[in-house]
C-alpha cells in the first residue's frame, strides 16, 4: 500500500546500567539495525533522533549527534522531544519524510544514559511549575502509579497478588530476552518481600531507569521491494494525540485534573484515547491484535493499558492475567519482551524498543519468547506533559 512505510531493520544496545555515553548506545543500535536491513549507512537520507535533556542542552541527544557519530554523510536530520513518547514522534517524522517522497530510507534512533539519583526539578521557589509544586507537596512519580493501582483494587477488586503476578509473568518471559537488563525469574514471594514504596506498590512493582539504545530502519514500499524485503513489517499507524479536555485522570506532574464543569464538556481518559486514533488510522480493531507492548511503569499499570487498548473489557484485565491469557501462549500476550519490568526505562529509546520487539515478533525471530503466528502488534506509552503514543505494526 502506498501509504505504508516498511521497517526493514531493527537494532538495540542491551539495556543495563553501563555508565557509558548515550551516543555509544545509539550508534550500536543503529549499526545493528543497518546490518539487520543489509543496507549501507550512506543509503540513509534522514536521521530522526529521540531527544532527552542533558546538562541544559535539550536536543543534544539527537539526530545530528547520532549522524556525526555514524559519520557525517550529508543526510537530513530531525530531533523529537516528547518525554516517553519521543521515540514515537521521531518515528512519525521519519515516516512522514518517506511518505512525502523526500527520502527513501531513514534511521530512527533513541538512546539514553540513566541520570544519577532522583529525577528532580530545578530549585528555588517556583509555584508556576507544576513539577516543582508536586515535589514540594511530597508527590513523587510512584504516587501517581500507586493512585491508579489502588483505584483498581477498590473499584475492580484487583489484589496485590495480581500485581505480583504481572511481575512474575514479565520476569519469566524477560529472562529469555538477551537484550533485557533484568533476567532473573522473580516469584510472588520476591515481590511481597520487597520494600513498600507507595502503597500498594512495592519496589518490584515499579520499573527502574536504565541505559539503552534502540534503532529502526524505515523505507518506502518501493525501496523495500527493490532490496527483496517486500514482506517486511509495515507501520500501520502512529498515534501521538494529546489528551482531550477535560482530562479526567490526575496525571504526572499535575496536582489536579481539568474541570469538566463547563456545558458541553465531558471527562476523558488520555490513555484510552491514544490507541483509538491508532486503530482508526490502521483501519483495524482490538480483535485484530495478536500482541501488545505496553508501558508498564508499574505492574498495575500494565492492567490499565490492557483495558485502554480494549484488549479486555474495562476492569477485567486481572481476570485475563489470572487465566494466563496475557502470557506468551495465551489469548493476547502482553509485553513478550519482558516489558519495562525487565528493561527499566531509557526514556527516548523506550517507545522504539517496543516497536523493535514487535518487528522481531512479526518476523517470527523471538525463539522462546515467540508469539505464534503474530501478524499485528500494538504499542502504548505515556509520558509527562500530555505526551503519549500508540503504534501499530503489521505484516
Amino acid at each position: 500500500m502506498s501509504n505504508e512505510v516498511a521497517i526493514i531493520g531493527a537494532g538495540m544496545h542491551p539495556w543495563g546500567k553501563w555508565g557509558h555515553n548515550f551516543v555509544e548506545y545509539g550508534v550500536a543500535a543503529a549499526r545493528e539495525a543497518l546490518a539487520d536491513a543489509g543496507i549501507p549507512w550512506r543509503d540513509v537520507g534522514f536521521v530522526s533522533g529521540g531527544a532527552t535533556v542533558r546538562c541544559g542542552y535539550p536536543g543534544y541527544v539527537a539526530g545530528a549527534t547520532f549522524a556525526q557519530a555514524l559519520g557525517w554523510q550529508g543526510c537530513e536530520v530531525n530531533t523529537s522531544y516528547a518525554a516517553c513518547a519521543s521515540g514515537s514522534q521521531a518515528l512519525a517524522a521519519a515516516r512522514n519524510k518517506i511518505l512525502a517522497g523526500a527520502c527513501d530510507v531513514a534511521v530512527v534512533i533513541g538512546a539514553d544514559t540513566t541520570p544519577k539519583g532522583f529525577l528532580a526539578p530545578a530549585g528555588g521557589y517556583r509555584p508556576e511549575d507544576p513539577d516543582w509544586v508536586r515535589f514540594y507537596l511530597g508527590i513523587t512519580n510512584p504516587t501517581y502509579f500507586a493512585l491508579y493501582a489502588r483505584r483498581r483494587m477498590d473499584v475492580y477488586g484487583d489484589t496485590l497478588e495480581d500485581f505480583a503476578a504481572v511481575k512474575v509473568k514479565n520476569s519469566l518471559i524477560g529472562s529469555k530476552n538477551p537484550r533485557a537488563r533484568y533476567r532473573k525469574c522473580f516469584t510472588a514471594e520476591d515481590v511481597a518481600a520487597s520494600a513498600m514504596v507507595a502503597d500498594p506498590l512495592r519496589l518490584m512493582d515499579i520499573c527502574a531507569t536504565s541505559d539503552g539504545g534502540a534503532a529502526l530502519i524505515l523505507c518506502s514500499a518501493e525501496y523495500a521491494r527493490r532490496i527483496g524485503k517486500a514482506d517486511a513489517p509495515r507501520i500501520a499507524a502512529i498515534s501521538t494525540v494529546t489528551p482531550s479536555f477535560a482530562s479526567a485522570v490526575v496525571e504526572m506532574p499535575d496536582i489536579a485534573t481539568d474541570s469538566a464543569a463547563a456545558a458541553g464538556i465531558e471527562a476523558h481518559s488520555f490513555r484510552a484515547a491514544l490507541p483509538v486514533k491508532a486503530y482508526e488510522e490502521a483501519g483495524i480493531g482490538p480483535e485484530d491484535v495478536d500482541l501488545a507492548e505496553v508501558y508498564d511503569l508499574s505492574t498495575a499499570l500494565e492492567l490499565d493499558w490492557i483495558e485502554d487498548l480494549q484488549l479486555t473489557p474495562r476492569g477485567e484485565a486481572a481476570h485475563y492475567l489470572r487465566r494466563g491469557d496475557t502470557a506468551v501462549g495465551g489469548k493476547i500476550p502482553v509485553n513478550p519482551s519482558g516489558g519495562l519490568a525487565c528493561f527499566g526505562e531509557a526514556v527516548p529509546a523506550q517507545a522504539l524498543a517496543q516497536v523493535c520487539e514487535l518487528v522481531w515478533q512479526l518476523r517470527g525471530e523471538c525463539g522462546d519468547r515467540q508469539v505464534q503466528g503474530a501478524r499485528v502488534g500494538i504499542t502504548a506509552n505515556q509520558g509527562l506533559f500530555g505526551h503519549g503514543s500508540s503504534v501499530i505494526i503489521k505484516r
Partner: protein
Amino acid sequence: MSQKPLAPAIEGWFTMDDQPRLIGTQCCACSTYFFPKQTRYCRNPDCDSTEFKEVELSRTGHVWSYTNACYKPPAPFVAAEPFEPYTLAAVTLEHEKMTVLGQVVTGVNVADLKVGMAMELVLEPLHETEDDIKMTWKWRPMADQGEQR
C-alpha cells in the same frame, strides 16, 4: 511544633481560616474551574475567553484514590528528620468536576481510606523555616460519612 507564626506554603492557593478552601479561578465565559489558578487563557477548547474570576472551591469531596509515601521525596520537599511516611489522596470535587491531590492529615493511614469516602479540606504544617511554619491543605475523612459514593 514551635510558636512561630503560620504562613501558607504557597501564597494565595488557599484560605487560612478554620474552614479552609482552595482558591482557584473560574472562566467568566464558560464557567470552567481551574486549580491552580488560570488567569490568562481558558483551556476549554471551545472557549477563547481571557477573563477569569477568583473563586473558592468546594472544601469537601470524595476519594478518587489514595496511597502513601514510604520514602523521602527529593527537594524541594522538606522532610522531617527522621522521615515519617505520610498518606496522600486524590479527592474529586463534585461541583467543580475535578480531582485534587494532597496529603492526608497526620494519623490517617492507607488502611483507613476507601475509594468514595467523604473528605474535607483542612490545614496542617508542611514544614518549618527559620521564620514560620509553612501550612498546606490536607484531606481529612469527614466524621459524618453520609452517603458514600
